[in-house]
């Protein structure tokens, strides 16, 4: 984690030649389907999936409705945590909430004690050296009228301070001078004045108690035709895709607040649509549309200088959000992310371009790692079918060994080619090209 934090702080600003260094770490949330993830029959396959997409942080939830109570069901909760470690990631444990009254000093104290006890249990089970690298998130979407109606920042600050001090009480002795990775407020950015929470969070709380700030962003919460959303599906999807630029704006806004304070900037939840009806949200989230939306969002997070992203979510049974189901069967979004993490790795030098040809439909990202291997990612975000000469897209004198592509026609598999001079996208899709030996990051998952 030391090197991770070091690399977090160094990159992000443009380099002399107009490129920038990626500081983005990849991650996911594992929440409602924690059983499948932690103790299910397909947990090993799910672990492979997580490694295949270079998952470095997995956000899990304590004191929530769906997850095991770490006090009364410690063995189950420990298996939840162990599944994260088995996937080669570090956990971000979210102390989700307690029931009102939020103003009651005794209740706040009781909650902080429970959080501290959880930290102590983790240290007992996995040791202080390991546990000090973990993330501890206080609360979930405190600014959301839906999830926490009437909750105020002043109440949140009080809870945060109590919990952070209780976490430090146990973890502090292992930190060796590092700042503890405690953070919040995990805000819902659909809410007006969401940035107020972040401003107050970093200005009104001792920064030595803040390791990261967390913010959430979905593209929409409405179905076509609802609450002023266009009825026409093509228009609706066009607007959704346009909003991926918002990830850049949000990441940059947060970066300006936290960068000089040594605080990490983490998009803690992202996906396309959070509509309550799975039939609506699944179609947007788990299709090739969802894949392209997510990859564009990742590129914008890179541009904006985000330190990490946590997709909502990894395992989701028959739900509308997951990268795979309870059996570990992947969606198009998983395959797209797998391609991207192989092309763009943390600390790569990257250049984001809108090519001369079809710039309203294409985005190109070039990446170069320390070993001088080069990769290119081409994102096609138009629903029209189009072919491009590779020389027009990647005009530089770079010899790419192979091209891999996923689009609307190939939705269930990645297509690999080595010799084509053109690339054809059948609607929405993305392609990656690599020189040298750029391959799977960890694990062995190949083409599907």
């Amino acid at each position, binding site marked *: 984690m030391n090197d991770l934090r070091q690399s977090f702080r160094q990159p992000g600003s443009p380099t002399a030649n107009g490129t920038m260094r990626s500081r983005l770490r990849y991650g996911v949330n594992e929440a409602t389907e924690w059983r499948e993830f932690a103790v299910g029959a397909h947990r090993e396959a799910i672990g492979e999936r997580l490694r295949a997409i270079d998952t470095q942080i997995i956000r899990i939830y304590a004191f929530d409705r769906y997850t095991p109570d770490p006090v009364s069901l410690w063995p189950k909760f420990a298996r939840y945590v162990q599944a994260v470690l088995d996937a080669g990631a570090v956990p971000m444990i979210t102390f989700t909430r307690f029931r009102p009254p939020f103003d009651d000093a005794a209740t706040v104290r009781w909650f902080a004690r429970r959080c501290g006890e959880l930290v102590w249990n983790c240290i007992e089970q996995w040791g202080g050296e390991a546990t000090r690298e973990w993330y501890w998130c206080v609360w979930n979407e405190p600014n959301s009228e839906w999830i926490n109606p009437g909750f105020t*920042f002043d109440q949140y600050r009080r809870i945060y301070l109590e919990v952070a001090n209780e976490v430090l009480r146990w973890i502090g002795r292992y930190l060796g001078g590092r700042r503890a990775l405690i953070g919040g407020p995990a805000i819902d950015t659909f809410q*007006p*004045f969401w940035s107020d929470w972040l401003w107050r969070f970093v*200005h009104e709380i001792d920064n030595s108690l803040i390791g990261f700030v967390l913010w959430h962003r979905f593209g929409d919460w409405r179905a076509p035709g609802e609450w*002023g*959303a266009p009825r026409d599906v093509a228009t609706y999807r066009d*607007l959704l895709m346009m*909003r991926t630029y918002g990830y850049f704006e949000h990441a940059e806004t947060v970066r300006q607040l936290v960068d000089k304070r040594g605080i990490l900037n983490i998009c803690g939840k992202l996906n396309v649509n959070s509509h309550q009806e799975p039939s609506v949200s699944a179609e947007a989230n788990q299709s090739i549309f969802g894949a392209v939306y997510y990859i564009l969002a990742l590129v914008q997070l890179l541009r904006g200088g985000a330190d990490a992203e946590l997709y909502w979510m990894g395992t989701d049974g028959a739900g509308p959000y997951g990268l795979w189901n309870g059996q570990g069967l992947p969606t198009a979004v998983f395959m797209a992310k797998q391609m991207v993490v192989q092309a763009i790795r943390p600390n790569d030098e990257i250049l984001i371009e809108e090519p001369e040809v079809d710039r309203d439909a294409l985005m190109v990202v070039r990446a170069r790692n320390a070993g001088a291997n080069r990769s290119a990612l081409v994102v096609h975000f138009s629903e029209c079918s189009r072919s491009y000469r590779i020389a027009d897209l990647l005009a530089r004198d770079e010899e790419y060994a192979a091209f891999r592509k996923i689009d609307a026609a190939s939705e269930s598999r990645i297509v690999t080619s080595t010799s084509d001079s053109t690339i054809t996208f059948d609607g929405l899709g993305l392609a990656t090209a690599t020189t040298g030996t750029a391959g799977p990051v960890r694990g062995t998952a190949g083409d599907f």
Partner: protein
Amino acid sequence: MRKGPADSVANGAETRSVRLRYGVNESDSWWHFALGPRRERIWQLHREMRTEIVRIFLFDKNAPDPLTEWDLFRSYVNAVLAVGATPLVTYAKFGRPLDDPRAVRWFAEQCGEVVWHCLEEWGEERVRDWHWCVWNEPNSTWIGGGVTFEQYRDIYESVAHSILRWLKPCLLSRRAPIGGPAVEGFQPFWEDWIRRFVTEIDPELIGFVNWHRYADWRDHGEKDAPVDPATHEAMMLWKARDYEVRARSVARLLRDCDVLNVCGEWNAHSHYLPRVRARFNQTLFGAAYGASALLSLIRGGVDAEMLWTGTDDACGYGVVGPDATPTPLYFARRLCAQYIRYGDAIVMPALDGEVAGLDGMVVKDGNGRRSAVLVHREPTTATYDLSEITRGELSDSRAYIKVDSETVNAGRTRSCNGTVSFSGYGVAVVTNAVVGQDFASEVECA
């Protein structure tokens, strides 16, 4: 209004050209602006703020009915022309059923009729430079009546065709000076309106897009706003950077369209009670916020801005009272307009690092004038070394002009000794060539 000059990079330093035109809204207190006993002084103050565009309203905001009160409307427009500005006429709304095609046609006919009357009254040469805005905040149920985009699109196209029926012959090759949707920026999904506006409406009918932005509408402690005034104000001042973010966001949506990017309504605060919003808008805090917002709009590449509002009779927004008494924001705005002019070059980044509490911009004109516009965004006293904060860009500065609590809410010019001091929130210009002599002056003009 025309598209602004291009930016350039030379000798490793980025130089951007100012493309901003300054403007104001004259709305609820239009009578004082147009017919009040102090109107000529108000017009003079507008000229000193280099007001080039005045947004005026029809069919709302107690504006005169152009059909039954033409004389009053004539005075309203003549006041704009007396300032030396051009009007941006906003057809604010209508009260008939939005889905009724006959109602839409009736409204469009009325709008066209206004254009015809204006052409008759002021002639083609003048009227072809005016702008016409269709509806006001259609995405806000409170202000614009909760119009759907589909309804708005039908209304817009009908009105635009009706305007062009009379205006087109005198436009020659110019783009239609018609625009919308004047979206309210607090609403979620406000960008959707801009995107749909420029993709679903015939581009021949669009000359500009208009968007609105305030920092807040809550009083201290209201709806989870900070109870502590200092915290609330500091947070609002930080959010002045949103104007740049939004300007760029809109510019991205307009990327391939030859359409102007206009922030048609802005100020610090839009609380529903005038006495509350006045505390934010019409104080030195409002001056600092307003100047910082202007710098952000300039950085964001906006083509025009229109402050809400110019003349103000107890509404809690305006920069000039009915008796022509200016607020601190008047002086701040005037400093910005005098020293950051259309076509001037701004040096990026302006200040050395991020000097805590200070926002600013270094500006050069084509005649050797170099100035720094500085905004002190903290309520405390502070002194800054000019050469440090501007990297020596202004070594020959002779004067500084400032507005803060020391100047008793007025501008004051002093000789420059290499430092700039602020007493609380304030705005200052340091320059090697003073523009005009109408601030109380302790130095000779260059």
